[in-house]
């Protein structure tokens, strides 16, 4: 069951059971986007409040599996107080983490991109890569955050 232990790290289950920054913000001034995984019905709503290029508040809400909900929860803690530019970097790093070939996790020849090492708790989600079907769960909140950015650009 080592693969499973890898997928369901303690920190992931903790964020699932005790989601951080759960809820909604008033729109406007906040912007909101909704993400769906049409394959499984998972849903997530992300609200962000941006002042002077800094994410001053973020809330998420939704229904879904432990991976989709914990990833969204960890995302909120990782980006609060960061500039939009910094957040773009974190999104990039997280997506890198999700695209690493599973061989590199087992000490294969591929090396882990150094840009993913600054992800903190989010590193715990790297076990997802061994279960390709679940990558979409892990990235749902992140794709929804990017939709929020598109909303911002349009406003």
């Amino acid at each position, binding site marked *: *069951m080592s*693969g*499973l232990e890898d*997928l*369901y790290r303690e920190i992931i*289950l903790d964020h699932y059971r005790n989601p951080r920054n759960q809820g909604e913000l008033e729109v406007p001034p906040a912007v909101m986007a909704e993400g769906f995984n049409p*394959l*499984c*019905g*998972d*849903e997530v709503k992300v609200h962000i409040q941006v002042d002077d290029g800094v994410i001053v508040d973020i809330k998420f809400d939704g*229904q*879904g*599996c*432990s*991976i989709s909900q914990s990833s969204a929860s960890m995302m909120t803690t990782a980006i609060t107080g960061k500039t939009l530019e910094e957040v773009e970097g974190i999104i990039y790093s997280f997506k890198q983490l999700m695209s690493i070939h599973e061989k590199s996790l087992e000490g294969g020849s591929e090396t882990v991109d150094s840009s993913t090492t600054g992800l903190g708790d989010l590193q715990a989600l790297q076990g997802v890569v061994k*279960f390709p079907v*679940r990558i979409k*769960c892990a990235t749902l909140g992140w794709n929804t955050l990017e939709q929020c950015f598109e909303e911002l650009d349009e406003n």
Partner: protein
Amino acid sequence: MSFDVSDIKKDFPLLACEENNDSLIYLDSAATSQKPQKVIDVVSSYYEEINANVHRGAYRLAEKATTAMEDAREKISDFIKSERSEEIIFTKNATESMNLVAKSWGAANLSEGDVVLLSSLEHHANIVPWHQLAESQGIEVRWIPLTESGLLDLTDLDRLLEGVKLVAVSGASNVLGTVPPVRTLADAAHAVGALCLVDASQYVPHRPTDVEELGCDFLAFTGHKMCGPTGIGVLWGRSELLEQMPPFLGGGEMILDVTQEGFTANTIPWKFEAGTPPISEIVGLGAAVDYLESVGMENVLEHERTLTTYALHTLADRFGDELIIHGPHDVSVRGGVLSMAYQDIHPHDVSQVLDEHGVCVRAGHHCAKPLMKLLGVGSTVRASLYLYNDESDVDALADALEATGKFFSR
């Protein structure tokens, strides 16, 4: 039990092979069934011995291929007790079969304000084509509600039928297992001058089917859920309706004549079978029908009822209130599809851990999002039974569920 499941299992190479013998517990036949060796052999020998395009060449090989395909049509026709094999239209799956009815019969016969009455059990394949007609022609889509236990609530059927031109219902739910009273609905539809379409994807594979007894006008089902290949579906329709319906797709084979000015459509069934058909899949479906008939559909039904009863009791005994099985629990009105909620563990997480124990179940909305909304859930864990499953598979499911509970309570 009417047949020995251990013998049946031996017919399915994927289940019987040494690697999977004890380690693979396949409980996802509502998604697709496994295939018996006989079907696999017929498909490969078709390519080895018969392959040629049908209805075209005058040479003997082409004639052999045509005969193989048309023999399969006869078998499938007999299997559902259709009086005429021309009433069997080959499609690529049940989804295409229902789209054919919507886009041919529906587009020609329905107009603004006409009502299509669906049950609240429907799969997206029997919802979206009607939503599309609502968009293009202004028809109204209306819903038969459900009772608490997941049966159709027919209390207000008379009122629901007002203005209805088609009643389109699932023959057996792919989520709750519910088997609605199709005959009652078909008779009620006819009494108001409406037609009745049955999505029999989860019906034909699991019980004897008699289109005259069902009393419907169209019956859609798919090959891959009944031991046949993927890529082959069937629409059965009453010939007098099919003859009046405009063609669905245009192309080769569906015409009697084509000129620069226009075309004359072929007769049924070929009018609806444009282009080279999936010949090996059709022949394979014929072999699947042979296989199921050799087991006996009455026996399949009896076996599934016995096993479903065992599953309902076993799961209730072992998990009590921690496990909810949605839908009716009376096996006389349900099939072997068990949609479950286990503790507060998300279905995806349940199925992930079950997989670690070799148990294959489906987690998700099962392409029935309106039904999920009625149930108040986003998704369920679904285990579905077929002729090759036995009590040991149900026990393995229960053991793996128990392990799942332990894993997430650590």
